[in-house]
């Protein structure tokens, strides 16, 4: 698996899009710091961007990489290599290279700005951690979708719809249901609702850490009240881990049964 990972990774690292992605974050973080002069505020703004953009890029890259390397995958399948190694290697290759673009793109400006002297370092680290989690989750989901769809256009369509649903529509529906059922106790429902969406979960996780009650919203407040800050943190990280593990296991299962 590590050989495939290595080659997928280097293949991607040299592609133009990795640089575009890296430079975008570099520019974004630099501009934010330049305009804000405040690390904590920059972290909040970055969070809002990362939470929507990272899933989108993870999804698109994952689907694109899978379909583009299809013939190459066939070549690998004819070699004496285990099937699961091929797909896991490719998946980790994509996820790791995207994470690296994110980490370097945002990390470098913050480091130059003097992150280590600031007390925002933990908030910042958590932001990067969730960014990496979201990359791994959405790349894995993208691989799942493309493994299940032979048709490229269909695969792309489903993947983008999945992103749209989790990043935008889900929140709307969630809010709507909270408003409609406001006469009932909704604590548990909203907790479960948050856990079921990695985007929401990441947002809550960061806001919990940043401790900005104004932005916390209803679910965040319930979260905090229910678990307290620390338990809440560990719990949400745990759930994010599950969000990575389940799709990855499905990649392995799906790859084993597929014809090429």
């Amino acid at each position: 698996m590590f050989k495939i990972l290595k080659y997928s990774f280097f293949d991607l690292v040299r592609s133009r899009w990795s640089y575009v992605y890296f430079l975008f974050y570099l520019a974004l973080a630099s501009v934010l710091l330049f305009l804000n002069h405040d690390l904590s505020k920059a972290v909040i703004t970055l969070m809002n961007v990362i939470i929507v953009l990272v899933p989108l890029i993870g999804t698109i890259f994952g689907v694109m990489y899978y379909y583009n390397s299809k013939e190459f995958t066939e070549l690998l399948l004819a070699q004496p290599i285990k099937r699961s190694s091929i797909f896991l290697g490719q998946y980790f290759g994509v996820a790791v290279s995207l994470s690296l673009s994110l980490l370097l793109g945002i990390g470098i400006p913050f480091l130059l700005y003097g992150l280590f002297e600031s007390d925002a370092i933990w908030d910042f680290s958590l932001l990067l951690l969730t960014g990496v989690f979201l990359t791994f989750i959405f790349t894995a989901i993208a691989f799942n979708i493309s493994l299940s769809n032979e048709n490229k256009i269909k695969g792309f369509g489903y993947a983008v719809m999945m992103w749209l649903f989790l990043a935008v529509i889900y929140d709307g529906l969630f809010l709507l249901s909270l408003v409609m059922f406001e006469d009932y106790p909704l604590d548990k429902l909203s907790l479960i609702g948050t856990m079921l969406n990695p985007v929401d979960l990441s947002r809550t996780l960061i806001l919990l850490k940043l401790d900005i009650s104004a932005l916390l919203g209803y679910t965040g407040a319930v979260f905090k009240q229910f678990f307290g800050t620390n338990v809440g943190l560990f719990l949400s990280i745990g759930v994010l881990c599950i969000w990575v593990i389940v799709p990855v296991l499905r990649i392995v299962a799906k790859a084993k049964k597929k014809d090429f």
Partner: protein
Amino acid sequence: MIRIENLHKRFQKNRVLSGVNLNIRDKGIYAILGPNGSGKTTLIKSILGMVLPNMGEINVLGSNNKGDWTYREKIDYLPQIANFPSNLKVQELIHMIKDLRGASSNRDQELIELFAVESFLDKKIGNLSGGTKQKVNIILAFMFDSPILILDEPTTGLDPVSLIHLKELIQKEKAKGKTILITSHIMSFVEEVSDEIVFLLEGNIHFKGTISELKEKTKEENFEKAIAQILIRKDV
């Protein structure tokens, strides 16, 4: 070498292979022929474990290929469409496949010279022409000395000189005592290189034997016409 028993494969509603029995015991060159969609590539991919059969067994060199992957060390495969990661250079791809197979091979230099691709070694694969890609494809397939060699449409996009080299190469491999499976639509190529032909039609083997046996059976002097005869009569 390769034994296939009662192989069935269906893609959704489309029955591609229905009960194929094939036993390849000896060394030599076997051509798998058949019209488009007769299941040639599916048969080859089943042998390689890329397509998972609905029913039936495949034994390669004495071991069942289901759920196993180590037997592929004994097979070299030339896929039909040569499309490799476009960011890699030719040299890197060759190096990578060697690394992935974990086998040492010195034959790549010889093959690179034979097909005259030295000047492309530092070029990215995405920038190569179709014919050059096919040459790289051939180099990758012939690089290792495995006892079984499977070639899916090896002649695609090759110029006449390379075609001659390819034919010589195939004969050389045969002399080494390998079992070689070839699919091709170019009948003159098949007639020239193959020892035996396996004719697939609608997911079944309709004829297996030498070319002279086929000609005798169909009472045709011309190989191409003999093949056409099977297609028309379907009962040979």
